[in-house]
């Protein structure tokens, strides 16, 4: 493939002598095209090997014996329970992390206080620590023999081996996404528009809802997508905190693992496919949402802008008013 691109022109001694690659030089163009193709092949090949092939295998194995075993596996009560439990946890953890993430991003980007650098590091901690360690730490803190165990038991609150603990574990492991995706956008939009709003009489709340949030919304949306995907798939921390009680504290990833260990291959593959489809649906939903809203709003900008990559970070690299220069 690369030979056909570069080999179309015979190499005469003269051209080899001073082969300064110029624009419009067919040989240089050919070489550039070959390089580009090569890079693409490697990138796609890598992706195919690591991601596409295994996922395709799961799909293949799932539907290998037709739809009836799949239907059976999907309607199995424990599978159903795991499915809804996963959704429940996501439905609580993701909004929590969204609000927290936006607040954190505002604090870190707009606030002036001591220990900001430390806070910025702390927020990345869930990425750095293994989820298993987070799970263990939660058991130590909230478990029966744990630090808060007595107080929780007295008040009849069970955290570990029940849904609250699983929500906490999920929230922790997916904590940094919204803040980390929102912060660069906040930095890029600068403070001019917010200050303009304040001189026009808007209070902090009005400024946030009407100026800041609309400006950072794509960053937030992307953060939410990542948070959702991460929360749906979380295994390590939840595995420890939940106690893995079938039909009670078993989320979809835990269910997949349990089925697999019990040699129920169809059950494991089917649940895995459901998980993959959920994640895929999240991505598609958010992509549609972004496109729709963007078409209504500022996206109807100058004609030349319409070919902006639709996904994933529409705000990055776009001049959003330019950096706020400090004159004087």
């Amino acid at each position, binding site marked *: 493939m690369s030979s056909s691109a570069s080999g179309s022109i015979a190499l005469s001694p003269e051209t080899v002598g001073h082969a300064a690659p110029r624009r419009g030089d067919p040989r240089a163009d050919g070489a550039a095209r070959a390089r580009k193709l090569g890079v693409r092949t490697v990138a796609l090949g890598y992706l195919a090997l690591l991601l596409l092939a295994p996922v395709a295998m799961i799909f293949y194995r799932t539907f290998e014996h037709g739809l009836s075993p799949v239907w059976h596996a999907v309607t199995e009560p424990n599978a159903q329970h795991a499915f809804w439990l996963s959704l429940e946890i996501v439905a609580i953890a993701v909004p929590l992390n969204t609000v927290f993430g936006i607040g954190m991003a505002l604090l870190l980007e707009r606030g002036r206080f001591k220990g900001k650098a430390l806070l910025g590091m702390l927020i990345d901690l869930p990425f750095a620590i293994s989820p298993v360690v987070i799970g263990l730490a939660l058991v130590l803190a909230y478990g029966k023999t744990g630090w808060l165990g007595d107080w929780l038991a007295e008040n009849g609150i069970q955290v570990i081996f029940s849904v609250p603990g699983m929500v906490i574990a999920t929230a922790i492991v997916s904590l940094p996404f919204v803040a980390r995706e929102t912060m660069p956008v906040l930095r890029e939009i600068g403070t001019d528009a917010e*200050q303009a709003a*304040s001189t*026009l009489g808007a209070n902090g709340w009005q400024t946030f809802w*009407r100026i800041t949030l609309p400006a950072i919304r794509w960053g937030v949306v992307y953060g939410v997508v990542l948070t959702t995907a991460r929360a749906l798939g979380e295994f390590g921390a939840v595995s420890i905190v939940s106690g893995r009680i079938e039909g009670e504290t078993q989320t979809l990833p835990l269910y997949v693992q349990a089925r697999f260990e019990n040699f129920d291959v169809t059950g494991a593959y089917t649940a895995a496919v459901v998980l993959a489809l959920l994640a895929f649906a999240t991505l598609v939903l958010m992509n549609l949402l972004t496109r729709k809203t963007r078409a209504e*709003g*500022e996206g109807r900008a100058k004609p030349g*802008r319409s070919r902006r990559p639709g996904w994933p970070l529409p705000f990055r690299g776009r001049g*959003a008013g330019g950096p706020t220069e400090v004159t004087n």
Partner: protein
Amino acid sequence: MAIEARHVSKHFGTFTALDDVSVTVGDGALMALLGPSGSGKSTLLRIIAGLESPDEGEIVIGGEPVTDMPARSRGVGFVFQHYAPFKHMTVHDNVAFGLSVRKRPKSEIEARVNELLGLVRLDGLAKRYPSQLSGGQLQRMALARALAVQPKVLLLDEPFGALDAQVRGELRAWLRRLHDEIHVTTIFVTHDQEEAMEVAEQIVVMNDGRIEQAGSPRELYESPSNEFVMSFIGPVNRIGDAFVRPHDVQILAHDDGSATEALIKRVVHLGFEVRVELTLPDGRDIWAQVTRGTAQELELHEGQILPVRLPQPRVFAA
């Protein structure tokens, strides 16, 4: 309403942005804060608006001390250097913003927005987004947005800085007329002395966080109180410690005894103005500003040696 800044100081870390600055702007006046970048002019403007707080000193607007008041309560209209448009809103919604956060009735907002869009000549563009406007249009939208809430004072930070020369010229003249129409006390910041002289009634020249001189454009040009003002407002020739305006350098046809000889190095025709670069017998370079007529009459050309009369140079005490 009158604006007063009393003994305002502001530091950013170890940098002194403003050092005991006091300014008074009369009711309905149009004043320019003029200075090079880093002189503190924008900081002073932002302190008046309430976007920065002074380390020391006081701000009084219309007789009312506002130093501890947040920007949103001060009743100032502020136009940012890069216009700070609300990009996700139409031109209409940008202009309506101040009224809508005040929860004014819809009919009132509509009427006011239409009136203002007419005033800034953006009538047909109400439904556009900021990304679809040119620099000059954005500038006028920002101005309409600031004026919509009927501010007590109008503050503009380098209002024409980001525009190309022709649009800049038009907008200057237009701002001048607008001010004659609406009479709101206005301060604008600029580093362009020509802009300040053309638009403002009063100019405050700032440098290094201090005020060098305040006065009308003519006062500043004709009687600058120091070297900085002299060289910042209008062109100068520096001869040792003395300063001479290029248009005061006279090129003569015949030596009448009071002149020195000079060699013409270069003649630059700028239209009506002709710039003549000269070398004096002692080797110093100066330039003279003459009219096209004079240049033609004397047939000025490169390499010519002519008598030149220097006026009494201005010397400032160190």
